[in-house]
């Protein structure tokens, strides 16, 4: 039997990665001054398909949801705050689906990051069924383009 390759998480951005640090984090051609925060690794894949975004990512690993026992401590929020406060980041883009839990996570994370950098959120209308994953590439690219500073 062939041993399955262990897929772990990137120690910097928490995206799925076979290596300790993922390809995107290692890439010299990616803009290190912009970080896009998403809920899930699948969102990274969806955003990569737009070929519109050239910065780095940070994957939270879920959304704040007390009903499911998920609070900020269960997500990769502390490492994000550390990362943003210790490096010179120009902009953090919050690209989290606009569900109730998504909005709560966006507001919570945004408040923690605002002392350190400019924080924007991508522009979404009414959610269809919810996830970035299901938004088509054109919609996503437009949402990214139309991002606004978080109040």
């Amino acid at each position, binding site marked *: 039997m062939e041993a399955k390759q262990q897929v772990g998480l990137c120690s910097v951005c928490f995206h799925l990665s076979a290596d300790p640090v993922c390809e995107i984090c290692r890439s010299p051609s990616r803009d290190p001054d912009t970080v896009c925060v998403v809920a899930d690794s699948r969102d990274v894949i969806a955003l990569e398909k737009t070929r519109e975004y050239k910065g780095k990512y940070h994957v939270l690993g879920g959304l704040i949801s*007390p009903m499911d026992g998920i609070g900020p401590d269960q997500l990769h929020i502390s490492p994000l705050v550390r990362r943003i406060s210790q490096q010179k980041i120009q902009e953090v883009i919050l690209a989290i689906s606009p569900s*109730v839990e998504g909005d*709560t996570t966006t*507001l*919570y994370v945004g408040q923690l990051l605002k002392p350190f950098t400019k924080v924007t959120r991508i522009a979404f209308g009414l959610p*269809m069924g919810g996830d970035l994953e299901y938004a088509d590439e054109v919609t996503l690219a437009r949402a990214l383009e139309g991002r606004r500073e978080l109040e």
Partner: protein
Amino acid sequence: MYLKTLHLRQFRNYREQQVDFLAPKTILVGDNAQGKSNLLEAVELLATLRSHRAMRDRELVLDGETAGQIVATLQRETGITDLGITLRNTGRRTVALNSETLRRQLDFLGVMNAVQFSSLDLELVRGGPGQRRNWIDTLLTQLEPIYAYILQQYNTVLRQRNALLRQQNASSSGAEPQIDLAELAVWDSQLAAIGARVIRRRARVLDRLAPLAQSWHQAISNHTELLDVKYAPNVPLEQDDSAVVQQAFLDKLGQRAIAEQHQGTTLVGPHRDEIEFIINQTPARQYGSQGQQRTLVLSIKLAELKLIELVIGEPPLLLLDDVLAELDLNRQNKLLETIQDRFQTLITTTHLGAFDTQWLKSSQILTVESGHIKF
């Protein structure tokens, strides 16, 4: 608007039933427990995507089956629309317009409108505040379909916030109270922002409905009674301004913070709203006579009909479930005068005896017998 056909497939006690509506008034006659109310329930679902008596979709599906369907053809001034709802035991629903499945259920609402009036509606006056909130929410959903989305968001925030308060409640009974105030603050602001939208929409619809209900009540009571329908929001509403209402909401959350942590549940917000019915300055709920309460419910239903017609621009359907026989002649006549041929009306009854012969002549009469309809 006119419902031309209705097709029920594995819905409640109907296996397969097609109904063609051939007159503005249809009387469904049959013994108890034959499927009369079930048919009206199907129409109610088409109009609101809600049922006032089913808790889960599983109840709506014919026993022993996994899915059921309601299909209808509706004639409106703007044209003919086919509506379809598929209900499943799993609770997952699909809705379609003109055979095209919609991605958002929200887009299904507002196509068909109906006012339901059943003998259970006396509970609107006598029952708890939850009944009245449910009533106004159903009406709002028809008038402003986006409200269904707002309400669903509000209920989600509420459940999440309650879960958080419960966790904190559980942890604080131990040695170390663990309260993430930053997280709670975000849920507070979400609750206030979405809650303010619920409150303002409820206030606005009641503002429009109250004078209509008042004039109906006056007419039916021969000018002896004055009805006031008053919104009593849990969060004070001093001004119809989003920022002001949100601030009032947050202020009240601040005042009740300790009680909320103690009880582990949200004590502030439109889920605690009340709507007061007052007749001649006396609360109708505790003090109204049976006759007054009946007049009140009838007035409210007539006001709903009028308001929907005003807002939508077309008369909605009227669903009268067992209720006509319970009204005295004066109230019956007021109702019938209003309906005439303008509102398509579906009426259920166990006996045709209570009906005016003129009425019977101009109505389509269908017999309902254990999930079958005979023409």
